[in-house]
């Protein structure tokens, strides 16, 4: 562990240490006070189920059922903790690894796999879940998120003190912080007081490029240059992640402007199923982070409190197993959508040009012997 820089513990907010012992924090401790045992158990349950789903999806890729899969293993605390701090009036712009956040927003997990089976670009209604479609271009969505947040402010959905107040939460990784788009988004958000929380999951790798090749300083320190209040949190501590997100959302929803959160975590799995992390990181590092597993940490805490009864463990295990089975069956049952459906959501309203292109494309497709197979 480095003493300084993007991989150090500099300024980390932590409310649960790696053994599961509860800590306090002068600024953020209060935001976690509302987390009673039942809510902590719910977060543990979600993390467990999401991880099981993640493993199942990896297996499905290895069995040729998915073209690609991006594991989020190790990042569950950052995702479930921040997800639990949101309310329906908030709106999320995820990157492509936010399966845990998707789960907290009510997206049925198997639906995510339509993208990774190559069937659709997105399979949920973003408006219904307050959860935008995945963006695969690194950092590109940070500008859309900022624009959406500015629009929320203009729609009067910020700073009224009502439950309708909301904010945007935009997720991206350490690598994205080097992108021009993200820096532009921070600039726009800051000068416009946009109600947005930039949530960086620093999982230490931009595919294989370490965070030390992205920054000299902890990523959270970048916020200061834009005039954006920033906080650095232990990304494997679900309680701290909840607390800082709760604070950040209250700040943004009140109309006080954007916030930058850096959740310092570790990507346990490969970047994607096409990647081999053994080529660029050591077993020693993996062992170090295995001792800091976010689920094990909360589990130890709940057991210490005597708040993790066997029924809860069994319920999570059986739900995980059932989700795995359902995921497997659901994925295999999917038919290819008609290729013409790619035109469906270009515009919200009927559009002449799109209609003409759709008609032409239908004719073109019919000119092939193997209609529809290469959808």
């Amino acid at each position: 562990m480095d003493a300084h820089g993007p991989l150090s513990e500099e300024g980390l907010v932590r409310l649960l240490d790696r053994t599961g012992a509860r800590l306090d924090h002068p600024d953020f401790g209060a935001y976690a006070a509302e987390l009673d045992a039942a809510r902590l158990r719910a977060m543990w349950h979600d993390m467990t189920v999401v991880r099981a789903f993640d493993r199942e999806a990896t297996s499905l890729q290895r069995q040729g059922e998915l073209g690609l899969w991006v594991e989020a293993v190790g990042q569950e605390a950052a995702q479930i903790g921040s997800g639990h701090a949101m309310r329906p009036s908030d709106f999320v712009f995820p990157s492509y690894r936010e399966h845990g956040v998707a789960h907290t927003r009510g997206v049925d997990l198997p639906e995510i796999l339509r993208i990774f089976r190559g069937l659709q670009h997105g399979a949920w209604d973003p408006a219904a879940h307050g959860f935008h479609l995945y963006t695969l271009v690194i950092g590109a969505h940070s500008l859309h998120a900022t624009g959406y947040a500015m629009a929320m402010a203009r729609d009067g959905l910020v700073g009224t003190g009502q439950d309708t107040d909301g904010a945007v939460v935009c997720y991206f990784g350490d690598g994205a912080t080097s992108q021009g788009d993200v820096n532009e988004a921070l600039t726009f958000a800051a000068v416009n007081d946009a109600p947005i929380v930039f949530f960086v999951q620093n999982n230490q790798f931009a595919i294989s490029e370490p965070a030390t090749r992205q920054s000299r300083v902890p990523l959270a320190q970048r916020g200061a240059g834009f005039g954006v209040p920033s906080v650095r949190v232990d990304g494997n501590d679900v309680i701290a992640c909840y607390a800082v997100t709760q604070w950040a959302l209250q700040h943004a929803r009140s109309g006080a402007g954007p916030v930058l959160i850096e959740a310092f975590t570790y990507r346990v799995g490969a970047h994607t199923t096409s990647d081999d992390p053994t080529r660029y990181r050591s077993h020693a590092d993996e062992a170090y982070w295995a001792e800091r597993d976010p689920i094990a940490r909360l589990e130890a805490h709940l057991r210490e409190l005597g708040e993790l009864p066997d029924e809860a463990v069994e319920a999570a295990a059986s739900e995980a197993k059932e989700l795995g089975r359902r995921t497997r069956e659901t994925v295999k049952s999917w038919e290819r959508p008609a290729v013409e459906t790619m035109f469906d959501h270009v515009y919200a309203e009927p559009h002449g040009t799109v209609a003409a292109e759709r008609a032409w494309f239908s004719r073109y497709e019919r000119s092939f012997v193997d209609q529809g197979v290469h959808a």
Partner: protein
Amino acid sequence: MPSFETFHMPDAGEGLTEADVVTWRVAAGDTVEVNQPLVEIETAKSLVELPCPVDGVVVELLVAEGDTVEVGAPIVRFQVDGDGPDLDVPGGASTADAPVPSVPTPEVDAVEAMEPDPAPTDEASGAVLVGYGVSAGSAQRRPRKEGALDPIGGAGEVSDYPVLAKPPVRKLARELGVEITTVTPSGPGGLVTREDVEQAAKARSTRALTTYDANDDQPWLESGYSADGGRSTRVPVKSVRKRTAEAMVKSAFTAPHVTVFHTADVTATMDLVKRLKADRDFQDVRVTPLLIVAKALLLAVRRHPEINASWDDEAREIVYKHYVNLGIAASTPRGLLVPNIKDAHRLPLHELALEIGELTALARENRTPPGALAGGTISITNVGPLGIDTGTPILNPGESAILAFGAIREQPWVHEGEIKIRWVTQLALSFDHRLVDGELGARVLADVGRVMSDPAQGLVWG
């Protein structure tokens, strides 16, 4: 009623085409469940463990450790419960349930093999977003209705009945080129043994006895093998024959060809040939009518330089060339070649004769350098020596005109108002009608004929 399921090698990365089997974690007869470790494979990217896709029993491993297996190839066969919706087959036969998308039966009459991508390349293409590229030959053009499609059940389909054989025996069969499903098993319980495979390989090589070599009096049968009970011989298409076929197909089906014809009195050319043969300066070269027609074509190109061009489809541009690399079709022991004379437009008649002589000699000796085959701009095919009047030549790809030069015969001809016996020949010019209009083609051919009829005209135009 048992049913079977075959697991195919998945693409464990994006755009990978093959993987090596490193270690099997299961063996035939093992009871397995979903997601237990099945096999470890090594791809171009990493070592990957594949989890088991089914609950059931391993019937057989179809590939051995150490084998390199193409993505999509069957690697293991399971017996699964008969509950699966699409696994039961009447009569208890098994089914191969492929995770790779299968191609539905096309509703068209003409069904032929899929056409390969027309861009012939031996290089691997890098056309994937992430990954190490796709291996050569894996790109296939999607068939159109007027085209064709591989019929269902073509390449890659496996027999419904499991063949029993140990992995090393399967490997041997592959090495010997023996299709293991065709081998008669002699081992216990219908097991195909090593001896069975060797026997099958021997039997097959006995049948292929009729192999021809170059010393045979029928050289075109070289490297062929007997077929149809000896009533025919099949010769693999390769080398010059293969390239000729590709070039002709490419040319014939991209450039719309038009051919114009012209019959000319070339008596003056024959007189000139006779005079040059006697000329002391031309004693070291072979003077033939081909030399004069080559010069005539060069003069015609000089008067109509726009014929000396090529069509660049990709750039949507016409490339007009300010030099002439004159191709001359030559029949060689290897087959038809069209070597060209570089910058032929600069050569005086004697040098042109030298170059034609060298080009012909090299072609006859099979020593045509590759450089001589590239970069031609316009060509001549000399069919006259074969006694043929003329033909409709196909363009050398990348060129826009080719002149066919027919036999020169003594024929009755109206000359200065009377029927005389004159030397007469037929000329034909094929051109690419995308960039050469009929008028231009006609003018070029007429000019060639004019010089042949009256070589002195060359002085005027030269």
